[in-house]
């Protein structure tokens, strides 16, 4: 078993490193208030489009606001919204998928038809339509992405529940006279959690791309609220004269997405070992 445990140790080390990185990003953005040198919303006519310097580490944008502070506060919005959205879709999807997988029958058929319909629409097109027509800011964007996301979680948890239900220990629990509720709570859910959680991790990166994309189009967060997508969208107009106002939020987005995507990848490799 030497080779396998070696690979396992290596993967475990990577998971710890990456999750520390992810935690660092989360902490930096949640404590933006403490870290940020300036207030992200106060504009100052005198320091419009200043290059990065002592007072403004990432320079200032078109309205003289400190890009560094806005990146920190923006991070908080994006990451909080992403985690909230993934968490809600994950919980709803997993529970519904598990119940349909366990009980089957019309409930299950209903979910399958609903899932086929929901997944039949391209996610971004639906998001654009919903966010565009409802025009409800970040919550609109979250609803738009959430509609199709919970369904993919439901389908995954349903297929895992099916394979768990076929296992002999579930039959043994029936013979032990256990109730459906007991079997679901004690046997189905714990064995279901690991694979579904791993999938949720991989969804974080994709959701972040979706949310910042919508904000970039002006369908998610609307200025002046600080959010990476909308900051980049705002700053791209005068990219030639103040490139830092675009590059720093862009860098922040890419790094965060890479860290969370890599975390999802490594955890998935670890689960397969």
């Amino acid at each position, binding site marked *: 078993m030497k080779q396998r445990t070696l690979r396992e140790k290596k993967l475990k080390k990577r998971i710890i490193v990456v999750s520390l990185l992810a935690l660092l990003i989360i902490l930096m953005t949640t404590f933006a208030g403490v870290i940020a040198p300036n207030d992200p919303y106060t504009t100052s006519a005198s320091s419009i489009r200043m290059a990065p310097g002592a007072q403004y580490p990432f320079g200032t944008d078109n309205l003289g606001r400190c890009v560094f502070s806005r990146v920190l506060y923006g991070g908080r919005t994006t990451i909080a919204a992403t985690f909230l959205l993934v968490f809600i879709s994950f919980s709803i999807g997993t529970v519904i998928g598990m119940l349909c997988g366990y009980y089957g029958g019309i409930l299950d058929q209903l979910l399958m038809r609903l899932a086929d319909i929901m997944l039949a629409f391209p996610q971004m097109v639906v998001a654009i339509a919903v966010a565009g027509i409802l025009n409800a800011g970040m919550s609109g964007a979250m609803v738009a992405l959430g509609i199709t996301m919970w369904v993919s979680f439901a389908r995954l948890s349903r297929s895992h529940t099916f394979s768990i239900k076929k296992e002999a220990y579930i039959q043994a629990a029936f013979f032990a006279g256990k109730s459906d509720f007991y079997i679901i709570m004690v046997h189905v859910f*714990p064995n279901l959690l690991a694979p579904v959680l791993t999938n949720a991790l991989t969804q974080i990166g994709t959701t972040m791309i979706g949310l910042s994309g919508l904000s970039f189009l002006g369908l998610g967060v609307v200025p002046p609220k600080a959010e990476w997508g909308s900051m980049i969208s705002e700053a791209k107009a005068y990219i030639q004269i103040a490139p830092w106002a675009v590059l720093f939020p862009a860098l922040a987005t890419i790094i965060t997405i890479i860290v969370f995507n890599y975390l999802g990848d490594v955890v998935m490799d670890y689960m397969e070992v």
Partner: protein
Amino acid sequence: MVLLEGKNLNKCFNDKIGYTNALQDVSFTLSKGEVLGIVGESGSGKSTLLRVISGMIPPSSGSLYFKGEEYTGKKPRQTGEFLQVIFQNAKSSFDPRMTMEKAILENGRGKKDKDEILRLLELVGLEERQLSRRAGELSGGQCQRMSIARAFYSNAEILLCDEITSALDVSTQARVVELLQRLKSDGKLSAVFISHDIALVSMICDRIMVMKDGRCVEQGSTDEVIGNPKDEYTRLLIDSVKRQAI
């Protein structure tokens, strides 16, 4: 005294591949302390029969009695009070995350009796330290013994064994067979033993039923069935085993 009885059991499935008659008019009886063997190749209906007797699936027609009282159509939750099933895949009959002790306690319908568990472990030839193990840390043979202990802990009177040794090595299988023979001789075992290996069945069972295409082609005491088989298919089964005899 007749513990378990089945009368004119039929079962037909109609799914994608059409209308299949898995069980056709099968009847049997099982008395206390007796082991009934059910032999047949794959597709003979022996597993379907076990799933019907255990209540996992309802019969299309026919009836089932426990100590004279009818229990046809009852689900495993109720039949689990008087019968327990031991599955072919020993490892997957335990929740991979659960220790053996918790798995056994789960089958006690609320009973919490550590001494009885230790006594059962000794009965099936396992040690107390294995109680804290999980299924992944035990061998196939050990898991199968543990599931026999778990079955007895529920103080159900009948064991239904579904090909419980086919996934095991010859030597491990021999040890499990010896265990069953010992339990039978102590009068502690009334069971239905299902297998495709007629030689194995002849070593454990008092009576044998031979199944072919959902029908019971022959039924009788082990000596009668092995000694002078009446049905031509039974003869074929016995000859193919004799040809392989060493």
